[in-house]
């Protein structure tokens, strides 16, 4: 698989957020905050991390997860890991 660009990551992340977390597709954009805009609670954050790990085949330790507040930050984190 070639290097994944951020547009593809966003598209796949969006699908996962809808299918795995039950989020509203039309509320999801790069600036959306998981907690305040998307109503993702503390349990939902763990679901989010698991879904990201499964979808992109990456490992996200808790100390890195703490820095994810928005959809854009989640995309950046995945992009960084896949490019490393």
């Amino acid at each position, binding site marked *: 698989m070639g290097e994944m660009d951020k547009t593809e990551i966003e598209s796949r992340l969006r699908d996962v957020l809808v299918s795995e977390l*039950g*989020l509203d597709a039309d509320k999801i954009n790069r600036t959306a905050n998981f907690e305040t805009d998307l*109503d993702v609670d503390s*349990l939902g954050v763990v*679901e989010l991390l698991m879904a990201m790990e499964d979808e992109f085949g990456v490992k996200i330790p808790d100390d890195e997860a703490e820095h994810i507040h928005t959809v854009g930050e989640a995309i950046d984190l995945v992009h960084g890991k896949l490019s490393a």
Partner: protein
Amino acid sequence: MSTGPRGRRRVVITGLGVVTPLGNEVEAFWSALLAGRSGVGPITHFDTSRFRTHIAAEVKDFRPEQHFDKREVRRLDPYSQYFVVACRQALAAAGVKFGPDDPDAVNAGVMVGGGFGGMGTFIEEVSVLLERGPERVSPTGIPKIIANMAAGLVSIEHNLLGPVSCVVTACSASANAIGDAAELIRRGAAELMVAGGSEAAITPYGLAGFNQARALSVRNDDPERASRPFDAERDGFVMGEGAGAVVLEEREGALSRGAPILGELIGYGMSADAYHITLPRPGGTGAARAMQAALRDAGMGPSDIGYINAHGTSTEANDAGETAAIKIAFGEDAYRVPVSSTKSMTGHLLGGAGAVEAIVSLLALNRGMLPPTINQEHPDPECDLDYVPNAARPFEAEYAMSNSFGFGGHNVALIVGSERVAATA
């Protein structure tokens, strides 16, 4: 203040709700019972080809997305979904709504009874644990599995800030929940309780486990005739699922707010068999003591009871034992009082059974109709009472008893009074 036996506060019933194999609201359910319809059919929830039993009484046409948002659909096991929906019906019927600042909310609570909780979720999560490891188990699994969560969800949804609790006593759980909730109101710990129970155990493990205990009917080629309580050819119970809920209120409070007065919770009795983990004590002496305790609690004698909704599971041991128990508790009246098992139509809702059957008992009194025991074809000499065979029939009575017995030796009897009784000072 109007008081019942021993000068205590009276507890009236002001709302009913059901999700059952015979209908997902009260009127449809009641019509199906009077028509003598069976809710039993081939299991559709999963592939049963490797199991001894292939039939159950499943809830039909229950679409979670009609009742819950997407996140709730994912986070609530059917066990909780059924209970939440039954409670919504009951609270809406009772006209109960507590806003965020309502001072009465602190005196309102919820009590759920369940045999297991989210059994299907538990199986799935354990499979994930074994196949994919501890870090792939869902963070929402435990709240989805624990049996008390159904009560927590109802309290959250309806802002019930008083006693919120859970009873886990197998197939007597929701009868205990109603009885215990009524006790809380009687002693002034709450003014209003929504109480009942639920089960959603028609899962691969539930079916396998009961099959291995040789508890289930294997009349796979004739599902509608499989649940046949008291009939000589009964061969085990048929699993059911669903939930029932009632709104219980202190009578004066209910009257002053103009609540619909549907009935009264008159008596509650419990006993233990102290005999075996799954078998009832032969001779029915344990179950009889629960019925006698309920009569004492109500300040009544056997002649006051006009209908018994039996536990009547369609197992060899229960039906003979329960018949013997009724004879001990009711004496001569055992042959007078009509006894029916609506499990012949609903299957066995396990932890949800007691609540659904208390509702059936109350509807029977209010509507003046006895729901039948269907599939009565071959009389059993050990089961010689009037089981209201095969067809509903009219009657008149003011008080009914509902029996529920559970693995572990739990015996529970509830006595309900009609809407006429509840309305009488």
